[in-house]
């Protein structure tokens, strides 16, 4: 056992090679303390994240929505961004890299026009009729203040 066989990094992966505390029973890789599930030396965080994703993928949790590509994106989060979230999200980043897609919309060129609102955004207000209050409540994505 020379060093940790797990990969470190989030966007780019590289060898970890820290001193080993155990071996993951799922993937059989040697792992360091940073890559082992806290208070455990029998499973690595990657495998735990994979298991969680596999459990979640058939039916998304409450607060999640399924995009057109079929991946579940959590829409609400209670601020519990821990190690598990990090490893689950890292795997989603790898999936994105494999499919070459980015969740949630198109990517514009950096040199595209810098205006945050286009004509269409402003025109969305033109349909508003203050006489009919229902229109305000039913509008898509607008919030009264």
């Amino acid at each position, binding site marked *: 056992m020379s060093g940790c066989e797990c990969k470190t990094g989030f966007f780019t992966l590289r060898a970890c090679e820290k001193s080993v505390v155990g071996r993951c029973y799922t993937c059989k890789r040697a792992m360091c303390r940073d890559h082992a599930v806290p208070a455990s030396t029998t499973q690595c965080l990657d495998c735990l994240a994979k298991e969680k994703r596999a459990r979640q993928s058939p039916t998304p949790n409450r607060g999640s929505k399924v995009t057109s590509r079929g991946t579940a994106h959590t829409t609400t989060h209670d*601020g519990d961004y821990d190690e598990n979230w990090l490893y689950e999200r890292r795997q989603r980043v790898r999936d994105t890299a494999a499919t070459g897609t980015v969740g949630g919309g198109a990517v514009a060129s950096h040199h595209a026009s810098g205006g945050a609102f286009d004509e269409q955004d402003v025109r969305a*207000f033109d349909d508003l009729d203050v006489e009919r209050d229902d229109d305000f409540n039913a509008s898509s994505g607008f919030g009264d203040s």
Partner: protein
Amino acid sequence: MFAALRKSFSLTAEQRALFKAKRIEGRFGPDDLIAKLKPLAEFDRIGDKGRSAGCGIIATLVLVAVVGGFLVLASDVSPVWFLGIVGTCLFFIVVVAVLNARLSRLDDQENYLRSVALPFLSALRQDLADGAELDVRIDFSRIKQKSKRDRVEKPPLPKGFSKLVNTYYKNPWFEGSAPLAIGGRVHWQVTDTLLESSRTKRGSSGKWKMKTKTKKTSRLDVKLALPARRYRAVSAGDPDVAIGDRRIEVALARKMASGESTPVLDGLIDLVALAFNKVKPITANTEATP
């Protein structure tokens, strides 16, 4: 709510000062920065929950006062009971409202610190060079304030309207750059823009009505600069990739029509990942599957 109050009393002077300034700016080690942000994010989370609980308590007390008062008045018991029930409820309503106001004063900020900045920095920390420091600026104050007003427009009036004012607010609230362990640097910026449209119209009954509506968008910018001797563009002629003598630069931007935090975090992470996907190492492949 009481957990939030307890937490508010346990904040250090430095943390209170950060909450008051609602801004963090400077050069930090990633671990130091995250250690600094975590208690603030935790208090923000507990504070939001506490305020919601406070509002629930107030609503319950109002209900108890109304129903209790009505029942006492409808029965033959002494009016002292009415005063006792309503008075007690009013007393506790005032106490809870004061405590809620105290929490609101301390925690009057956007949720972006806990729901975007902290998780993004936690992720990025893993890609930083050993001993590297980040340049970061986080402004978590509210976007609707005078200093963030970008411009005010009075466009032509639609039929029937007597006044129309569009106010634009601009808030570049999260910006930073960091050196990467693989060499090179990543830079990111998140800018929110809020359009507030106030319209006034006189109805057929002669009554004046005014409505204000808002729409928020977020613009994400990511720039990735890597040494040209070690990396090359994945596809030739990619307009997002600029190849220089010394550096290869990927610049991406994305506009998100959303005021919510989670899509911004997902969008930012995906955009940085996409920037990395547009280049690949010339020599050994440093990217491997987890």
